[in-house]
């Protein structure tokens, strides 16, 4: 079944822009990215849209559809009624470059602030041995495709540019959690999570989890466990006493 769908696509750059109206053919089984490609092919050849795999695995085509952060390639047209007007804008947390393409370099800067995996001294690559139960928590976080939809929807930076310096965002707090829970990582990441990556600014409203296209339970499995680890150190004298007596990390 095909029909003429109505779209509003934001067009412009950092100096300004507006929503442009399009009426375009929509076919059964298509996703929003297919329709944008048809707009490119038939009506607006200079429409800028970032995409790559079209399979929800590269994380390139992040945008906002009817105001909700989503992947263009994973949003089926079948979720809309044929009479709906579908509005597509770029991610609104990051500076816009052109049309649907944003400058996501904020995320790369934040990625560089997280110290890399730190194995025990004297253990060479190839000698790593881990039990599956010890690594599976970290493996959930490795499903991240770095679409940055969680960063886009997080109100800590979306609504407050001034927080961008102090807050790493859910994606990179999850990276800190991944390494902190890693059985072979020996770096102490808990103080930095609070002091350098801004974990305390997270007020766990779970929007990052809601928009994650990989279904990673970012809040429950990464952010809250990290908050609890910070509470261990900063706010729980019983844990401090226990650690002091037993001198054990875990």
């Amino acid at each position, binding site marked *: 079944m095909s029909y003429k769908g109505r779209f509003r696509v934001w067009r412009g750059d950092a100096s300004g822009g507006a929503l442009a109206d399009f009426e375009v053919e929509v076919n059964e089984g298509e996703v929003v990215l297919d329709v944008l490609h048809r707009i490119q092919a038939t009506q607006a050849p200079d429409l800028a849209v970032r995409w790559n795999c079209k399979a929800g695995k590269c994380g390139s085509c992040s945008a906002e559809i009817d105001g909700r952060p989503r992947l263009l390639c994973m949003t089926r047209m079948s979720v809309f009624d044929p009479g709906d007007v579908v509005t597509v804008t770029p991610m609104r947390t990051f500076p816009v470059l052109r049309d649907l393409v944003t400058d996501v370099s904020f995320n790369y800067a934040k990625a560089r602030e997280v110290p890399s995996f730190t194995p025990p001294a004297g253990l060479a690559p190839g000698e790593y041995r881990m039990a599956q139960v010890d690594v599976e928590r970290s493996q959930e976080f490795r499903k991240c495709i770095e679409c940055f939809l969680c960063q886009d929807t997080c109100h800590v930076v*979306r*609504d407050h540019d001034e*927080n961008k310096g102090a807050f790493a965002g859910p994606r990179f707090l999850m990276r800190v959690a991944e390494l902190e829970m890693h059985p072979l990582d020996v770096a102490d990441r808990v103080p930095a999570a609070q002091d350098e990556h801004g974990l305390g600014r997270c007020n766990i409203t779970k929007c990052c989890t809601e928009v994650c296209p990989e279904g990673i339970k970012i809040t429950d499995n990464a952010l809250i466990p990290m908050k609890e680890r910070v509470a261990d150190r900063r706010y729980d004298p019983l844990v401090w006493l226990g650690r002091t007596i037993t001198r054990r990390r875990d």
Partner: protein
Amino acid sequence: MTARGVDAPGRAAVGARTLRTDRWWLAPAATAAGLLVFVVYGGVRAFQQQYFFADERYLTPFYSPCVSLGCASEPGSSHFGMFLPDHPLIPYAALSLPFLLGFRLTCYYYRKAYYRSFWLAPAACAVPEPHARQTGETRFPLVLQNVHRYFFYVAVLVSLVNTYDALVAFRHPDDGFVVGVGNLVLLANVALLWCYTVSCHSCRHVMGGRLTHFSKHPVRYWFWTRISALNTRHMFFAWITLASLILTDLYVMLVARGTITDLRLIG
């Protein structure tokens, strides 16, 4: 005023603060209404100091443990002594209620619920919040959310007390062992309270989440996996226990007032 948030310089000049077309306001509105109903009902009942003990064996959870001198008005309602002064502004269960309130106020689920529904930060995902600043939980008073685990420890003790209340309710001072509908209500409520308490994120952390090497602690890992499974339903238990607390209290109150009669199943 300088443009901020989604209107900040450099971001796409979309105009509308949000383009969401769904009923995003419904969830926070319903949450606010649900929480307000509980707060008003619980507040009224906690200070009513009447109709809290029925059939000489059913004690409502809003009055457990009954440790006020006022509990003497209902012989048999106090299982742990009476020592708090009988004053209209001091609930009979003043020993437990502040901690239970603290447990729910600092609960990770309820934090999400009231940050969204009352503080609107944010009311829904990708809907701009109205505040000029956001410091999250880094400053007083919200930094106190980090004491959640202490409220959890006390909540475990209170759950034990509630369990005791539910068990002793099977014994009638005159008729001995009896089972009434009220017993089933109290038991169901206690079971749900345990589910809510044990599925808490702090419990999950304390029981095993804080470990780096699960393989060295198989017992704690087993507990962690079970609590993790319950934890995925923490929101469900948070709401269902609000309802079960109200319904249990309502049942005891109606029986105590003589509005309804407790149906005896055994004895």
